[in-house]
């Protein structure tokens, strides 16, 4: 069975989108998406961990006995998480403070262990690398999308470094979007919108088939 490496990369965005299709890794998705910058750095950390873990799980898949694969996965995942933690603490201390316990908590992010179990343990290294990169990028895209919506509605503008859009808030910002309730409701509505779009596409395809 030869799978296209490119397909393994691209499927993370739509077909197997971790947040909207597989509905896993919810905690960081909601916790860090109060601003685009936070979402971006969290996403980047997850990409690194996911690629690292996928590649090593795949490399060791032939010598890992089935019975102890979960402890092996956990160690292979925890190692890059510690690397991310230490690097971030050294070079981005402010971001490390903001993301708080959600950096070490990448260890228990279901996305990573799910990819190790469902994909990397059964596929060659190159495909696993592409899978990790793809799913990770899909996750990052979700984080940026959700945080862009929340930051825009919650503060009235999106701030990335010294760049602001729009220059001055166009409306009275709704601070509730930055609180937990706003996050839950925002994600729920986004999922509902996605369901509507998918249902519409399905109907169209059915109409074409007839």
């Amino acid at each position, binding site marked *: 069975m030869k799978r296209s490496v490119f397909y393994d990369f691209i499927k993370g965005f739509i077909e197997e989108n971790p947040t909207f299709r597989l*509905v*896993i*890794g*919810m*905690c*960081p998705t*909601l*916790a860090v998406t109060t601003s685009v910058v936070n979402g971006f750095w969290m996403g980047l950390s997850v990409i690194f961990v996911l690629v690292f873990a996928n590649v090593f799980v795949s490399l060791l898949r032939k010598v890992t006995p089935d019975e102890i694969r*979960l*402890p092996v996965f*956990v*160690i292979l995942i*925890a*190692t890059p*998480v*510690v690397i991310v*933690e*230490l690097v971030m603490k050294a070079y981005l201390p402010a971001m490390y403070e903001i993301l*708080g*316990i959600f950096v*070490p*908590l990448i*260890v*228990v*992010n*279901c996305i990573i*262990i799910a990819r190790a179990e469902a994909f990397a343990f059964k596929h060659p290294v190159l495909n696993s690398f592409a899978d990790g990169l793809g799913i990770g990028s899909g996750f990052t895209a979700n984080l940026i999308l959700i945080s862009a919506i929340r930051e825009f509605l919650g503060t009235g503008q999106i701030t990335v470094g010294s760049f602001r859009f729009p220059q001055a808030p166009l409306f009275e910002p709704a601070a509730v979007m930055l*609180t*937990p*309730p*706003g*996050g*839950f*409701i925002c*994600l*729920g*509505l986004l*999922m*509902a919108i996605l*369901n*509507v779009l998918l*249902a519409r596409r399905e109907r169209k395809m059915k109409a074409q088939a007839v």
Partner: protein
Amino acid sequence: MEIIAIILGGVLINNFVFMQYLGLCPFVGVSRQLETALGMSGAVVFVMTMASAVTAALEIYVLAPLGLGYLRTIAYILVIASFVQLVEIFMKKAAPGLYKALGIYLPLITTNCAVLGVTMLNVRRSYGILLSTLNGLAGALGWSLAIIIFAGIRERWRLMDIPKTLEGFPLALISTGLMSLAFLGFQNLFKAAFH
């Protein structure tokens, strides 16, 4: 005073699900029925309390004196994973009824980020062993409260006419949002009482 603050804080004010976004996967995944929610809550309360105690002891007697702080994440997750395994083996022998009732929820607890989350919070707030255990217990009770209320709400959905696009996760998240809005009210209530 601190003890009361920790208990109230864990259960109501800083509720894991509603205020800190911890343990959401099992919260959404295992809340379809009240019974399974109760089973999961029991397991989580037990594991989270014990894990808090064990990791706090590990931190104070091993990691801190040896200066191994950078191994914390790996050490904790291994402690939690082996602890869950231990509980599973023990329960199988000692309480087969309970073991059967909890079923697959026991191993699932390893990936409940609330468990690792609470141990990390304990370290960050530098609680001792006793306060860590208490914080774990309070957090777990708060998580249980949330999932039990939520399971009750979800059971009612079956009788309702829900728009197709909202079915499942979207409605679950929106309901959680509304519940969390209600819990937001506790925040200032106790701030007023304590300060």
